[in-house]
């Protein structure tokens, strides 16, 4: 839905509780995708225990947070994964979880199919093995397709196929649409952010300005393709894309990481955007009182974008994309549709890019397919 301007202003001043809460259950992952937002690989020894995780869900239910987005790492690696999601669903908190699909065998698929209020997003990064495995590792595309087959065979219903838009995958939009149609699945496209390990590949992989334009018009024709409000920076091209079209960081969204740290959004796992930890006084206290979140809810400074006629459409774009490319938060988005971000980046004589604070990448790299 497209929110009207006054409502968007209200959202920018923050809500009683997030609309969209992402909770990364673990930093452990059996894959090592090159663009991983959370630099995942190894479990963190300080990750929330099962009682802590269940307690957090109780608090989420009390705050009337309608659903949670669960991710990782690979969330299904946690041995208490089902206990956690079943507890959420029992409390009437909907669960959407993202997975690489490697753990969804026929038995698991049937168990998932038996649950209500559950959405599953299976990630691939190409419409064929060669394109996808280049990012996610050799054999991962086939594994994801097996998970989709298993969900289909178990009559799970409509799951989601989730794809990050890269310079390669954005050329395969019609093929993704076809793939989703074949499964009766929904297609979900999200933006490549220079966050986590993504900072190392963003320069080579982020879509070109022309590709972003093509993507915008493709999405405009397909309001049923989900985007998680990912591409609001493209709304500067004209008609707003479906969604709230604003940066929700600390206002309508936030992230809880595996050790209970609360960050402004899933794309800014960095000390600069750390609001607090749920272990101290609970999540509600962080959401309501954090100084960082309070400052994010103040009217923003449009900075360099103030004089652009499209500022109302894109609101200057994505905070994370700016921060991790070394731009100021008052600079244009690095993928500004008019090229102002590229100009701002080029004007920096020295580029200092912050690296993600916690890095749980495996020290020994798994062997990735290089095509």
């Amino acid at each position: 839905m497209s929110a009207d301007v006054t409502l968007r202003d209200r959202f920018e001043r923050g809500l009683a509780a997030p609309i969209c809460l992402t909770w990364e259950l673990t930093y452990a992952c059996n894959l090592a995708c090159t663009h991983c937002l959370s630099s995942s690989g190894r479990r963190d020894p300080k990750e929330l225990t099962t009682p802590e995780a269940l307690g957090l869900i109780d608090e989420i239910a009390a705050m009337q947070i309608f659903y949670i987005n669960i991710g990782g790492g690979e969330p299904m690696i946690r041995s208490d994964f089902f206990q956690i999601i079943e507890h959420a669903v029992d409390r009437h908190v909907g669960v959407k979880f993202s997975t690489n699909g490697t753990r969804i065998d026929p038995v698991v698929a049937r168990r998932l199919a038996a649950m209500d209020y559950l959405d599953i997003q299976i990630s691939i990064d190409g419409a064929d093995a060669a394109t996808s495995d280049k990012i996610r590792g050799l054999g991962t595309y086939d594994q994801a397709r097996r998970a989709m087959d298993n969900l289909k065979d178990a009559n799970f219903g409509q799951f989601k196929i989730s794809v990050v838009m890269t310079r390669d995958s954005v050329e395969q939009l019609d093929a993704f649409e076809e793939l989703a149609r074949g499964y009766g699945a929904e297609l979900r496209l999200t933006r490549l952010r220079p966050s986590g390990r993504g900072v190392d590949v963003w320069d080579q992989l982020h879509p070109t300005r022309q590709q972003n334009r093509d993507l915008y018009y493709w999405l405009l024709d397909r309001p049923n393709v989900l985007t998680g409000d990912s591409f609001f920076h493209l709304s500067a091209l004209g008609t707003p894309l479906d969604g709230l079209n604003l940066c929700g960081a600390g206002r309508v969204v936030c992230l809880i990481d595996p050790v209970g740290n609360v960050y402004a959004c899933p794309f800014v796992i960095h000390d600069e955007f750390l609001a607090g930890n749920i272990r101290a006084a609970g999540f509600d206290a962080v959401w309501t009182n954090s100084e960082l979140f309070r400052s994010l809810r103040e009217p923003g400074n449009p900075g360099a974008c103030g004089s652009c006629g499209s500022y109302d459409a894109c609101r200057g774009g994505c905070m994370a994309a700016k921060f991790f490319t070394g731009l100021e938060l008052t600079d244009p988005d690095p993928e500004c549709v008019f090229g102002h971000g590229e100009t701002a980046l080029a004007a920096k004589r020295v580029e200092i890019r912050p690296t993600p604070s916690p890095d749980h990448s495996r020290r020994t790299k798994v062997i990735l397919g290089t095509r």
Partner: protein
Amino acid sequence: MSAPTLASFDATAAWQLSEQVSLRDESFGALAYHHGNRRLVFLKSRELVEVVRALSGHESARATVAALVPELQRSNYEAALASLAVSDVLNVR
């Protein structure tokens, strides 16, 4: 029963907040989330939220509005209820 269109909304029927919907108060009114179709709906005034919450205690949508809303504004509120019915936030009980 399928959802009504805006024009076919029957204000004389007994409506209620759908059991599939969670309603959360916000400073501007409330957010409604439909667990079935996963849709988020914005109720943009606190008065409207009161009317929605009161629906189940009255014999019809029209009676609810009559009990809570000044006469001049009633048609606006009925229209708002109609759009909530279209998005499945409300159903006939």
